[in-house]
């Protein structure tokens, strides 16, 4: 009985230490997405180029990254060159131009190169709202059926790609092949 009491403070300390240690590596600004496992929300929006109307059906067929961006967002500029690089490697990326001025978006895509296969123009932020977007950049990973499988909040760089997105993306590509 007495021995048990003696160990108790140490046990409590270890318990608290484990929680605090985990807390060190948690980013409270990163919310778990409520959208994972759900189909990409329905939408019908013009393309940024204005030449066609896009719907959720256009996203079906191949696994892809869906990148939510805006010219007003400094971090989007940071990640843009890396998206270009990924697109060159053959990764399918679609863009959602979120609450942006369309002219500015067109200039951006002309000046910095366009890594996106589809450019969805979400000027009012309605698609962003349905996606649970609360800032930019956010990047969703969808499978060939158009179901959202993962969401990354913040800049996609080489580390994020290598450690988080690439294995999942490759898995989805392999899912389709056989």
């Amino acid at each position, binding site marked *: 009985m007495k021995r048990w009491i003696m160990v108790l403070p140490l046990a409590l300390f270890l318990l608290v230490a484990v929680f605090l240690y985990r807390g060190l590596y948690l980013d409270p600004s990163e919310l*778990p997405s409520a959208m994972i496992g759900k189909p990409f929300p329905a939408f019908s929006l013009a393309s940024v180029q204005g030449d066609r109307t896009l719907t959720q059906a256009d996203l079906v067929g191949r696994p892809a990254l869906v990148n939510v961006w805006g010219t007003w967002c400094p971090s989007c500029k940071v990640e843009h060159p890396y998206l270009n690089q990924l697109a060159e490697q053959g990764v399918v990326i679609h863009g959602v131009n979120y609450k942006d001025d369309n002219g500015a978006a067109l200039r951006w895509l002309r000046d910095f190169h366009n890594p996106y296969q589809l450019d969805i123009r979400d000027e009012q932020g309605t698609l962003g709202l349905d996606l649970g977007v*609360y800032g930019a950049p956010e990047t969703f990973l969808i499978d060939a059926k158009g179901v959202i499988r993962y969401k990354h909040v913040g800049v996609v760089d080489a580390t994020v790609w290598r450690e988080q997105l690439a294995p999942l993306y490759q898995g989805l590509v392999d899912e389709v092949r056989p």
Partner: protein
Amino acid sequence: MRRWLAVAVFALGLGGVAQAAIDTYKFADDAERERYHQLTKELRCPKCQNQDIADSNAPIAADLRREIFRMLGEGKSNQQIVDFMVDRYGDFVRYKPALSGRTWLLWFGPGILLVGGFVVLAVIVRRRRGQAITGNTELSLDERERLAKLLNKERSHD
């Protein structure tokens, strides 16, 4: 002097306009306004996390307020509006998350800790009291001898 007064009055008026422009929603009746205030107080801003969406100036909070206003106008119930938000942003947006398998600890954890504390306290108090009653308060022969020696020493010093 009068001109300055006029300018001051004009500026005050402008201030009023600028403040009102934060959100200019026209509600059908007071009940709807009341529900709007209740909902925007109850939902948490996903961007600036320790503010409700009524308080927050983040663009996303403004969007969510607009959505709430729109849905109120469509005659949606409070529950439908909260579900709409939770579907998109998760349990996080609720200051009062629904009771579920994942959140029961959140709801009952403090109560469990409190009850646990009282149990420990009760056990300690009972044990102490038991000791006090059953414990031998009389001195043993040995102890009495030592006491006598000590008292004698005291006396011899005087």
